[in-house]
Structure formats: structure tokens, C-alpha cells
């Protein structure tokens, strides 16, 4: 176990802290992607949504 710090607030092992940061980043990207998707769907729905 490490001492809690700003980068590692739970005092986890280096490996566990790195995995947690990775998961947090993936979740953040997933949420941003979801917001963009909903935005794009709203625009397409408002404009008819069909090509051609």
C-alpha cells in the first residue's frame, strides 16, 4: 500500500491506481460519447433524419 496522495487518494498499489485511472478515463469518454450521440440524434430527428 502507498500513502494517499492527490493522484492516488485511496493509497492503492501503483498497479491498482493505474487501472482505476484507466477505468475512470474510459467512463468519462463513454459519457462524452453518449452526450455527442444524443446531440447528433436530436439534430437528425429535427431535420427529418433521412438521406436523399
Amino acid at each position, binding site marked *: 500500500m502507498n500513502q494517499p496522495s492527490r493522484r492516488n487518494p485511496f493509497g*492503492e498499489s501503483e*498497479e*491498482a491506481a493505474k*487501472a*482505476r485511472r*484507466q*477505468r475512470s*478515463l*474510459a467512463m468519462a469518454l463513454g459519457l462524452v460519447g*453518449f452526450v455527442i*450521440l444524443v446531440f*447528433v*440524434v436530436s439534430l*437528425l*430527428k429535427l431535420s427529418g*433524419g*433521412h*438521406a*436523399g
Partner: protein
Amino acid sequence: MSDAAMSAKARPAAAPASAGDYFSLLKPRVMSLVVFTALTGLVCAGRPLHPALAAIAILCIAVGAGAAGALNMAWDSDIDALMRRTRGRPVPAGRISRGDAAFFGGALSLFAVMLMGLALNWLAAGLLAFTILFYAVVYTIWLKRLTPQNIVIGGLAGALPPVVGWAAASGTAPLDAWLLCAIIFIWTPPHFWALSLYTSGDYAKAGVPMMPVVKGAKSTRLQILVYSLILAPLGFAPVFTGLGGVLYGAVSAGGGAAFVLLALRLFRSRAGDADGAGEGVLYDPKAEARPARDLFAVSILYLFALFAALLVEHGLRSVA
């Protein structure tokens, strides 16, 4: 100290779960075949659809299929731990808990179905929800440990993506869409049983009643041949409904003939005959399994070629 705490202490500490572990819960290789067949259904529907909406439909189907895979891994972690092929998965390896895997699968299922409904239509969303529930509940929880017909009936979940793709594009599910579903449905048993003929030891150890474990290798080889004889003409049927053209006709005729010939070769072989191992040097289990391995490999190529031919024909038609 409780039993759970003691066993947790006795077990070596698993590495912490990475984002990649969560991704592997989605069974990316299975997902790629689902995406390919769904895309074919979507293109064959022949309705103009905004490319962004088409991409969202495919994303929803991919995420829905992945979510079903995560729910499957959450439920089956006990038997996955007993099989060589699956014991490295994140849940049996202890990197992700069953609860976390189930929550992940459930949340992604909701996300995929809701987005499909809101962005495309509710027929496609309903079919996607049915597909996920069928795989997670009917196949994984109910049939897999109950009957050797598990993958026959459960195969419907893997067969539905082209119908979901078709419905996403057109809001309908006509006969041609169900014909694609029927082809995958009939293709599934010979495909999986060919694999299980040379991995049945693992299934037996885990107590999964796969066909070779319950009925024996000879009966399995016969059933593979019967399904192949149904599959070859069924694979050609889209030519008669107008769904498939000349390219598709050539691919399905050639592929179907190769499939049946390999199934016949497998039927005449001794692949999966475990009792043959006691007959000395004349029997080599690895060499005997070759017809099963060949059929398994060709079955993947066959399905890929059929759907690729449709994709090319309908893709060219929509460009022209």
C-alpha cells in the same frame, strides 16, 4: 472469520480490472460477426438512411450483443472457471465481480435498446431487447445447462441481428429478413457441434450438456450432416426470393456444396470418438479431429461469404 473472507484470503490476489477487461466482457469476436450480419440486413433493406443513423443502429446492435455477452459471463463464471478456453475471462479470473459484470451488461442493454428506440424505431428496439433477453435468459440461464438442444434453440439470439438491422433501416421485418435469420439459425448447430467435437472434454468437465457429451460423437456427426443438408438449399433460397443475385447464387451454391462435402467427410470420420484413444497407435485424436476443425473453419468462411456477397450486391445497387 467468515468462509467467504477466508476463501478470499486463501485465493491469490487478482490483478485489478482494467478498461480492457470490461471491453473483453463484451466478447468482441462474437460482436464482430453480429455487426457484419446486422449491417447486411440494414443494407439489404434498401431504404435510404442517414449514414449517422445507420452507424448509430450498428453501434446499438454491437453494444446490445456485447451486453448480452457480459450478462452471459456474469452468470456462467462458475463453469467458465472449469474450461481451458474460458478460465482466463475477467470474472472467473477474479478481476471483475459477477455483480459488476451483471450491472455492466444490464446498463449497456438499457443504453442500446433506448438509443435504438429513440434514434431509429421501436420495432428495431423491441427486436434488440428480445435478442438480448433471449441470449441472457433463455439460452444462458435456462437451456445451456439443461439440454443438448441448447445451441439449437439459443442460436436464435445469434440469428436475429440481420432482422434487427433490417428493421432499423425500414421499420419492417419482411420475409427476406427472416430468411437471413433462418440461414444463421440452421448454420449454428453444425458450426458449434463441429467445435464441440474436439473440445467436448472441457464441456464434460464443466457439466455442460453439449451434444457430443450427451449423445456421443457418432450421433453428433450425423446431426451435423442433417443440418448441413438443410442449410445448403436454404442458403440458396434468397436467389428465388430476389434477395440474392448472380454473385450470391454462385457463392451459396459453391459454399453449400463444400459445406455438405466436409460434413459428409466428418460423418465418415471418427472425430470426437474418445473411446478410440484406447486403441493404440492407429488412433490419433488430434489427426482424427481434423475433419471437425476443417468444417468449423469452413463454416465461418461460408457464412461470411454469403453475407459479403449480399453486402456487395446490395451495396452496389444502392450506389448505382
